[in-house]
């Protein structure tokens, strides 16, 4: 494999529904996160809050290429985008950010720990790289049970040098697991430029050590991500794990506490010119698949949805103190109380 470019350079009317879905989901993530940043500023949201703004094409394009009735998604702590792309209710995601009992994890997970078992979204994991073996294990279970499903496992350029990645890829290959690893190379592991800490500049090549094909894709192009993931998923279903490197960029700092002074304004502006939402919008307009009025009404509709999510989170109850003792064990008999 290697560096991928989208095959369909021209939009077709039959693709309009798919592109509208991409547009809708990317916009939802963008507006949801802009609102989350605002709420963080107002101290409604605390702790670490890693925003996904700029990377929307990766989660949306790749998750659109799987079948969540049998496939699974496992990701790390920059997880709001994947959660929403899996179809999680923005109200429940926002409530979790607010730490409310109506949140998906009953206020015990917060920003880094979104989960929705019914939607096959298995987190939301906070330790850099540790979700890679876990996601591989989900794929192991899919093969063991013969479900025909695959697992998409996401991680960043900062996680790819963890032993967890290398150990997992080795076992995924020897056991022929149905897994697609998606490295979202947003180019900055916290404040460290990826080329400074990686022995190779093209991260997709790291699969080669385990005889796992790697493919690099423009992570600012949702259609390219969709196509590359679709091909990778087909191979994974046949027992060939695949590594995708999606070259992308995060507009915000690593987390809300990071002013991102390690990069230049010019660099940021360069990537904003390739904005995944703007690019898809322009493409659709040029192909006659979208007009400004339709876009405007979609935008307003999503803005309302986000406002409703905030209102829901605001109005939800704080978790009662006794809930801290719940969900530790299947029973509660192992909790020490002196």
């Amino acid at each position: 494999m290697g560096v991928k470019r989208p095959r369909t350079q021209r939009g077709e009317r039959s693709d309009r529904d798919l592109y509208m879905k991409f547009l809708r989901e990317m916009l939802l993530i963008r507006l949801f996160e802009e609102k989350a940043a605002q709420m963080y500023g107002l101290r409604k949201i605390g702790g670490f809050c890693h925003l996904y703004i700029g990377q929307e094409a990766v989660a949306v394009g790749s998750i659109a290429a799987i079948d969540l009735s049998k496939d699974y998604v496992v990701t790390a702590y920059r997880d709001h985008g994947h959660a929403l792309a899996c179809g999680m209710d923005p109200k429940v995601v926002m409530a979790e950010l607010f730490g409310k009992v109506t949140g998906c994890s009953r206020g015990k997970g917060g920003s880094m720990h979104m989960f929705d078992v019914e939607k096959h979204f298995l987190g939301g994991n906070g330790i850099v790289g540790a979700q890679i073996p876990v996601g591989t294990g989900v794929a192991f279970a899919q093969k063991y049970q013969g479900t025909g499903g695959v697992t998409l496992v996401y991680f960043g350029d900062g996680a790819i040098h963890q032993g967890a990645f290398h150990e997992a890829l080795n076992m995924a290959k020897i056991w022929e697991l149905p897994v697609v690893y998606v490295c979202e190379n947003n180019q900055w592991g916290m404040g460290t430029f990826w080329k400074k800490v990686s022995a190779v500049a093209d991260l997709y090549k790291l699969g080669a050590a385990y005889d796992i094909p790697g493919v690099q894709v423009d992570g600012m192009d949702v259609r390219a991500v969709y196509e590359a993931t679709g091909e990778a998923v087909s191979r994974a279903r046949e027992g060939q794990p695949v590594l995708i490197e999606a070259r992308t960029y995060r507009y915000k700092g690593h987390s809300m506490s990071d002013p991102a002074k390690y990069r230049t304004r010019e660099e940021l502006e360069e990537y904003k010119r390739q904005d995944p939402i703007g690019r898809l919008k322009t493409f659709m307009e040029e192909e006659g698949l979208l007009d400004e009025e339709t876009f405007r009404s979609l935008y307003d509709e999503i803005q309302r949805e986000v406002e409703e999510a905030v209102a829901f989170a605001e109005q939800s109850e704080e978790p009662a103190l006794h809930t801290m003792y719940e969900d530790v064990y299947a029973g509660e008999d192992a909790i020490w109380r002196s």
Partner: protein
Amino acid sequence: MARDERVFLMGEEVGEYDGAYKVSRGLLVKYGPKRVIDTPISELGFTGIGIGAAIAGLRPVVEWMTHNFAILAMDQVINNAAKMRHMSGGQLKVPIVFRGPNGPAEYLSSQHSQSLAAFWMHVPGLKVVAPATPYDAKGLLKSAIRDDDPVVMLEAELMYAWEGEVPEEEYLVPIGKADIKRPGKDVSVITYSKPLKVVMEAAKVLEERGVDVEVVDLRSLRPLDTETIFSSVRKTHRAVVVDEAWPMCGPASFVAWAVGKACFDDLDAQVEIVTSEDVPMPYNHTLELAVQSSVEKVVAAVSRVLYLE
């Protein structure tokens, strides 16, 4: 494994080698390579894969060749297995068993001869069991596999050579229930796992001196059966806790504190602990034996709480 298709075993040498300590002897032939899986030497990786399989509906048994190597997998056990249920608000369950030999062995020096019980016992979200007899080992392992929570099983390395009655038929030893291995009235000696043998020998020595020792085998470190522990101490009024882990923040220290707090008015002496010396394990056999709990140390501790010294 015969009862539940979802149960599988994975670890280093569990299959074709029949287990590094022959614990899984014959399982590969019986259940095949789909369910008895040899892994690379890759503890973090295969432990995490087990956890992923557990959250997706299987019931893995992960064997660590020894608990010493499980330190490499500690992130997966503590940060993922133990916490996924809680941080997902109860959406996920992690029915997995982590097992393997733990504790001092012989002539292995400090990296291969240590008890790591405290590391697991410390963590809410885990259950921790440690059998002291072959009978308990079978019953506890079955209970652990059927449990919906992650269970860490500590099997003392030198105990693999021990013999004892193990019925062929199905039985379970419940997690969280201590066992009175020897009833007595003068002093409660509380222990678990391999030191039980030393404690039982010490009880015999003490019996000859007219001291009637009650031996409480914890069997489960988390949950801890405080009911059985405290009722024993309330009967005997004296307690010694024997453990092969290190003394600071170890199982013995915790149990001794719990007894001291709950049974303060019933105690006729302060609670004593007998643990490993607070040093890495030396290779030299004389030193190695001196580091560990012994019949003499237990007899001395019992004598102290009985004011016989």
